[in-house]
């Protein structure tokens, strides 16, 4: 018999009972569907002990590493504290330590957490203003001892949050933020794998984090191809840094793409996703990352899959604004 802690309550499992059945028997409201480990509706996360392997069948590698599990398959071996995905909200506090312009409408925001953080570059956090306005931003930097997080914030003309960042937020101010979420990040273990990363606009932020994580933390040996797309050259806001990176790491390749007019031969004309997917028609065995406009992400996911990438090897982050 084991104990399942869910929110403020603790329940005991009856012999060989699954976490899902224990919760349902106690009239807890949790989503579920097939009860057979297929539909993944009952996805939950263990906040302490590692869930039984059997309950993680079919989940992505990084979900497994983050102790996600399927409640309908989980006959717990140890006591567990469980939560629904994205429902383990507790806010952390950080201080703004840097705010600089990356381009005319993208700001680099750097914050320093007051407590240690667990995150992977490329995941996202929710930033919260005092009055409760919340927006999600991807983490563009790698794990560090200073507990710092970097974000690329695109300033939208009528953006409630981004305009406030641009106009009112200053170094020294405090911000609340959530624990890191999402599965769009580097996964250890396949150091020779080829990586294709496609981003539009500030979809570059998570990709920049993932690339640095791959190259500097994990010494990734396989080829890494980044295609960054923008309408005009001012949107290629990390061109200099990325070009420097290609000089330092021979296996890293950067293709800046412009969908608008091109006046310089160092840029490729066209949409980043179309150029990338034409350049690599065979994606068997590749890992693919797609970040940015939802339309681009959706189309490219299907195309990458049809070109041979396994669905489990395609990681996406669609930016809604």
């Amino acid at each position, binding site marked *: 018999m084991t104990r399942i802690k869910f929110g403020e309550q603790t329940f005991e499992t009856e012999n060989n009972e699954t976490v899902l059945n224990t919760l349902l028997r106690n009239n807890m409201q949790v989503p579920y569907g097939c*009860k*057979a480990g*297929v*539909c*993944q509706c009952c996805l939950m996360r263990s906040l302490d002990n590692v869930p039984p392997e059997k309950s993680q069948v*079919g989940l992505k590698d990084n979900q497994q590493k983050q102790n996600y599990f399927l409640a309908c398959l989980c006959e717990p071996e140890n006591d567990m504290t469980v939560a629904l995905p994205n429902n383990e909200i507790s806010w952390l506090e950080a201080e703004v330590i840097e705010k600089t312009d990356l381009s005319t409408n993208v700001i680099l925001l750097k914050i320093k957490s007051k407590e240690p953080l667990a995150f992977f570059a490329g995941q996202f956090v929710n930033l919260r203003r005092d009055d409760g306005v919340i927006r999600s931003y991807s983490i563009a930097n790698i794990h560090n001892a200073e507990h710092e997080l970097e974000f690329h914030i695109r300033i939208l003309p009528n953006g409630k949050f981004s305009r406030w960042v641009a106009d009112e937020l200053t170094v020294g101010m405090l911000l609340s933020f959530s624990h890191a979420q999402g599965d769009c990040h580097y996964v250890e273990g396949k150091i020779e794998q080829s990586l294709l990363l496609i981003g539009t606009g500030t979809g570059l932020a998570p990709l920049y984090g993932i690339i640095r994580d791959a190259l500097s933390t994990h010494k990734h040996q396989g080829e890494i191809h980044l295609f960054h797309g923008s309408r005009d050259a001012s949107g290629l806001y990390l061109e200099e840094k990325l070009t420097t990176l290609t000089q330092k790491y021979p296996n890293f390749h950067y293709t800046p793409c412009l969908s608008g007019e091109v006046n310089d031969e160092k840029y490729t004309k066209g949409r980043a996703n179309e150029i990338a997917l034409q350049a690599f028609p065979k994606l068997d065995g590749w890992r693919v990352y797609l970040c940015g406009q939802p339309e681009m992400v959706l189309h490219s996911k*299907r195309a990458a899959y*049809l070109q041979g990438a396994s*669905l489990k090897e395609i990681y996406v982050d669609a930016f809604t604004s």
Partner: protein
Amino acid sequence: MTETTTNATLFEQLGGEAAVDAAVDIFYRKVLADHRINRFFDGVNMDTQAAKQKAFLTMAFGGPNNYSGQDMRNGHAKLVKMGLDDSHFDAVIENLAATLTELGVSAELIGQVAAIAETTRADVLGK
């Protein structure tokens, strides 16, 4: 080691869950690339759809399942209105067989899988 597998279930002979996983990736790709039927899959969530394909293949492979004819009817009712008919069902069975051939499954076992898949025809097409 070469003992015949007459006692093994179809699901075991095919290689169990690992075989289903391998087959889903190939099968769903074939379906999406097939111009006769891919319009029925426009705008669906690919991960959810792949999970459904997995449930279907597990069933067709003779594996553990909660197959319900009523669910199958409800799930396809909208597609039947869009024109889903026998020709499309045949195309799916064809892709299923091609997937198994690609994975080196014998013609005899492919026949058994196709026969199980065939049992869903009336429910899928709302007949």
